[in-house]
């Protein structure tokens, strides 16, 4: 049952990823974040699921707002040529991605195929207080995150008018 739920969530996440890469719609990132949050709940990472939904969905909302007026005001013939992909380019990327897929998935499958490694029943590992303690013990990471948030807030401000 758990594996079936995981397969369903993974299928939704991969479909949202394909949609994001292929057509770049605004709804792809929120759907991807929600599916990944479900996966994290299956892996007992409840705090991380909350962080994921907050970060990715928040970013998707800001992106939709930032791109909304530009999309409305853009000429109709600007976005049309970008959707066409050359056959040679598509074949080269397919070969490269297939090679990486073989290396990555094959290596991980052989290296991390563990059985019987489970958390003890009733363990509170993965919940939000533990995540808070982990982040509190890494002030450097928190500093980097703070700089990122400040930079994002600065860039998400109203557009500057050029003379």
């Amino acid at each position: 049952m758990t594996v079936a739920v995981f397969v369903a969530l993974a299928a939704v996440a991969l479909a949202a990823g394909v949609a994001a890469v292929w057509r770049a719609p605004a709804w792809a990132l929120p759907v991807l974040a929600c599916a990944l949050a479900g996966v994290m709940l299956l892996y007992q990472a409840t705090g991380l699921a909350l962080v994921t939904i907050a970060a990715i969905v928040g970013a998707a909302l800001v992106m939709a707002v930032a791109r909304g007026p530009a999309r409305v005001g853009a000429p109709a013939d600007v976005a049309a040529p970008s959707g066409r992909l050359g056959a040679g380019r598509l074949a080269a990327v397919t070969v490269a991605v297939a090679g990486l897929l073989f290396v990555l998935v094959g290596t991980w499958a052989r290296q991390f195929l563990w059985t019987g490694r489970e958390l003890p029943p009733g363990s509170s590992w993965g919940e939000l207080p533990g995540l808070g303690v982990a982040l509190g013990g890494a002030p450097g990471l928190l500093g980097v995150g703070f700089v990122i948030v400040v930079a994002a807030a600065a860039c998400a401000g109203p557009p500057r008018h050029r003379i």
Partner: protein
Amino acid sequence: MPITHVYYLASGLWLLGLAGVLLRREGWGRTLALVVMLVGAATVLVGAARAWALADIHGLAALMFALAGAYAVVLATLQPEPDREGP
């Protein structure tokens, strides 16, 4: 839940993002593909944290998710806005 499952999912997301970065030419699509790549990399950390039962890896994964969100916001707002006063 086997650990390998989340690695398969992370691999798929990362490779999807890589294909998007290589195939898409406009900034908006490439930005979304880069975000998908970052999310895939952070998903690897979810599996690693579950395998070793280390909350520190969760902290790093949380930072990567925040980085992906902030990255998306910064690049989306840096896209040039079309000139609306043209003919």
